[in-house]
């Protein structure tokens, strides 16, 4: 220890001469720079097609009509006005009128108008990429007044939730409607948000500078510049946050979080996320076409061990597919507990002999999926079932699953997060009958569940309480059918420097930091 410190000190002293000058110069400036270390790059900065981690950048450059604020212990969830100050819904839930905020300017200086809103959503829909399908039920957009937009829907839909989505719901300046994807990805922007992109190095960083005359409130000591650094390596990210080179990061190994918690300079912010991990059983391929076999597998899943070993106890047990924090979450869902004896009995009932072989596919890049698989495999081994773990590139895994029920895997493990905050997003995509499945990769089909999901969807704009009840009923049916094994709700763990004030995590916008609200 002494020796190491000695070496360190001498080495530092030797370098002091060269580096002292500019370190000093930098120290003066860093106060107004916020550095966010992101583990993945920002593939698409086009507000129409962005559908990935790029949302973290865009959410500081663009704004939607509204923003979802999740429930806290003291307050229920709400949808906060943003570019719209208020909105009205017609009786039948098919006509939505949004009143726009006055005095908002785009970064190019043009004012926010109903035409801009209409044009943005139309461009987004016309390109048809990313999450543009969220506007699928909109049949017409009218602009009766400069600050008033009227949406007509084909069927009732919670358009307030759609309008506050983290993807495809951004409003951008009319001057950019004619621009193509490449223009945006060259680092240009056309938003109303507090920051604009000043420099973009794909795969490395995006640097944003504060825009003069932002309409919203700017706290004292707010940041002038924010740098989104792409740091794929968790070791490096951890090193940066510990040394103060980064102010915020996530996706560090759970095992290292205890040590970070005790670091006086850091806050470890743990929050439920809207991401949930589950395995879809292929119900069209024997022997998982039998409910009892599926139930047995779910009983053999080591729920607590996965939380302990895979997430160091940070995650929580999944209660069905809709995670905690989203309306429609079923806190009392009758999910199974690990019980190998019961599993054995069920298998015996169906006459399953030892020697059964099953294939589980998961995405190469997801280490938690691998841990879950390895632990599950060990449990199944005691039941005489061999589980082959098949890590694949996501596209390949998906491709195999879609090919045909006979050729596909037995168990498809994946994470799901909602495009916008509604249980419909989980239930419809994953469990609603599909002719040619896109994400219903277990080929699950149940008319009763389909009906409940469809009806709940229609009600979610107008009668959210009833919709929620229907969604929960559908989920219970799915659990009863053991269509999937619900593993864990992934926690959001963000590590942030203590001197950064005003941080809250909003799981509706995955890993987005609203920098305008922060200060040092």
């Amino acid at each position, binding site marked *: 220890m002494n020796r190491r410190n000695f070496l360190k000190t001498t080495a530092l002293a030797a370098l002091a001469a060269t580096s002292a000058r500019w370190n000093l110069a930098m120290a003066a400036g860093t106060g107004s720079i916020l550095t966010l270390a992101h583990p993945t790059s920002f593939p698409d900065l086009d507000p129409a097609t962005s559908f990935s981690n790029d949302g973290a950048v865009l959410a500081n450059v663009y704004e939607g009509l509204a923003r979802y604020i999740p429930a806290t212990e003291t307050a229920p969830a709400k949808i906060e006005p943003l570019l719209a100050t208020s909105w009205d819904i017609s009786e039948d839930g098919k006509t939505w009128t949004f009143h726009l905020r006055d005095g908002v300017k785009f970064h190019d200086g043009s004012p926010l108008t109903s035409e801009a809103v209409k044009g943005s959503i139309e461009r987004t829909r016309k390109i048809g990429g990313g999450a543009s399908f969220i506007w699928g039920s909109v049949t017409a957009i009218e602009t009766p007044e400069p600050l008033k937009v009227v949406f007509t829907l084909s069927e009732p839909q919670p358009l307030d939730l759609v309008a506050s989505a983290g993807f495809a719901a951004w409003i951008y300046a009319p001057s950019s409607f004619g621009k193509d994807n490449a223009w945006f990805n060259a680092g240009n922007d056309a938003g109303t948000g507090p920051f604009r992109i000043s420099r973009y190095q794909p795969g490395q960083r995006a640097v944003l500078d504060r825009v003069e005359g932002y309409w919203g409130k700017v706290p004292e000591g707010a940041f002038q510049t924010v740098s989104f650094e792409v740091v794929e390596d*968790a*070791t490096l990210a951890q090193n940066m946050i510990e040394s103060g080179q980064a102010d915020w990061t996530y996706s560090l*190994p759970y*095992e*290292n979080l205890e*040590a970070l918690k005790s670091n006086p300079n850091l806050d470890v912010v743990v929050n439920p996320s809207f991401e949930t991990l589950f395995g879809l059983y292929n119900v069209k391929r024997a022997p998982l076409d039998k409910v009892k076999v599926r139930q047995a597998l779910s009983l053999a899943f080591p729920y607590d*061990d996965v939380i*302990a*070993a895979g997430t160091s106890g940070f995650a929580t047990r999944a209660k069905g597919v809709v995670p905690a924090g989203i309306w429609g979450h079923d806190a009392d869902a009758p999910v199974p507990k690990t019980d190998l004896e019961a599993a054995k009995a069920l298998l015996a009932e169906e006459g399953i002999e030892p020697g059964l072989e099953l294939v589980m596919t998961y995405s*190469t890049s997801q280490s938690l999926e*691998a*841990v879950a*698989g*390895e*632990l599950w*495999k*060990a449990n199944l*081994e005691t039941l005489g079932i061999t589980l*082959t*773990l*098949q*890590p*694949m590139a996501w596209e*390949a895994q998906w491709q195999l699953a879609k090919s045909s029920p006979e050729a596909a895997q037995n168990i498809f493990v994946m994470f799901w997060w909602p495009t916008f905050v509604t249980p419909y997003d989980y239930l419809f995509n994953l469990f609603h009958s599909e002719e040619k499945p896109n994400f219903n990769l277990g080929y699950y089909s149940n008319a009763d569940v389909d009906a409940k999901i469809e009806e709940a969807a229609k009600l979610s704009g107008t009668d959210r309480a009833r919709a929620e009840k229907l969604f929960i009923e559908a989920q219970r049916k799915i659990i009863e059918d053991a269509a999937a094994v619900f593993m864990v709700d992934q926690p959001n763990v963000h590590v942030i420097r203590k001197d950064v004030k005003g941080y809250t995590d909003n799981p509706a916008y995955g890993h987005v930091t609203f920098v305008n609200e922060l200060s040092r």
Partner: protein
Amino acid sequence: MTRLVQRLGWPGTLALAIVVLFVAVALLAPWIAPYPAQGAGTPNVLAKLSPPSAGYWLGTDHLGRDILSRIIYGTRVSLTNGMLIVAFSLLIGLPVGLAAGYFGGWVDEALMRGTDIFLAFPALLLAVLMAAALGPGFLNSIIAVAVTWWPWYARLARAEVLVLRGQPYVEAARLAGVSHPRIILRHILPATGRPLTVQAALDVGPALLTAAALSFLGLGVLPPTADWGQMVDAGRKFFPDRWWYSAMPGLTIFIVALAFSVLGDALRDRRQGARHASA
């Protein structure tokens, strides 16, 4: 024993001993691993990431498995990996080289230009490309490396054959009307095979290193099978605080590759020495 030392020198003998030791470890893995089940992949969650101790000599991994047992089981994968890579490469390279060298002319030209294309790729990149195309897995990663490896054997074999082809007994056989396959099998193959096999045996070390690099990139064997390269990668996110996870398998790779390298040097020196003495 003393003769062995005399022939290989002390470093060579030590290296040979290490290689033999690891082969033994691979064969006897289930009997000598302190925790055979963990070596084979069974998690042991309660003890996860424990530092080296009396119970776990080299510590445990993120699922609480004994690193020593994992390394012992990984020996099987790594050595088989290395051996299969050279075996596959020989299987492709030897016939190609034999044919090119024996028949000469356009056959030689066509086969050798073909191998040139493979040699034009930087080897690891081609292996990565192949592994990416084939997907991860034990056999796939071996094929991926073998694809980059065989042209060397083709060249070696060709060079050996070119020397042999001019030998009087081969000429005689040819004049006597012995068929080509027969000449190749009877006269050429045995004489070419021996130097090539020695070379191949020594290449197990480098092959193992390449395979480790692939599995470090996540293109090797599938979990939960233990593999050294993959262990180093898995442990990297806990490095350096839980150094043992990465360092132990990393050191193991280093020691084995070093042993092969030193042994190879010793054998080469011996061959050169023999040539000097006879000259």
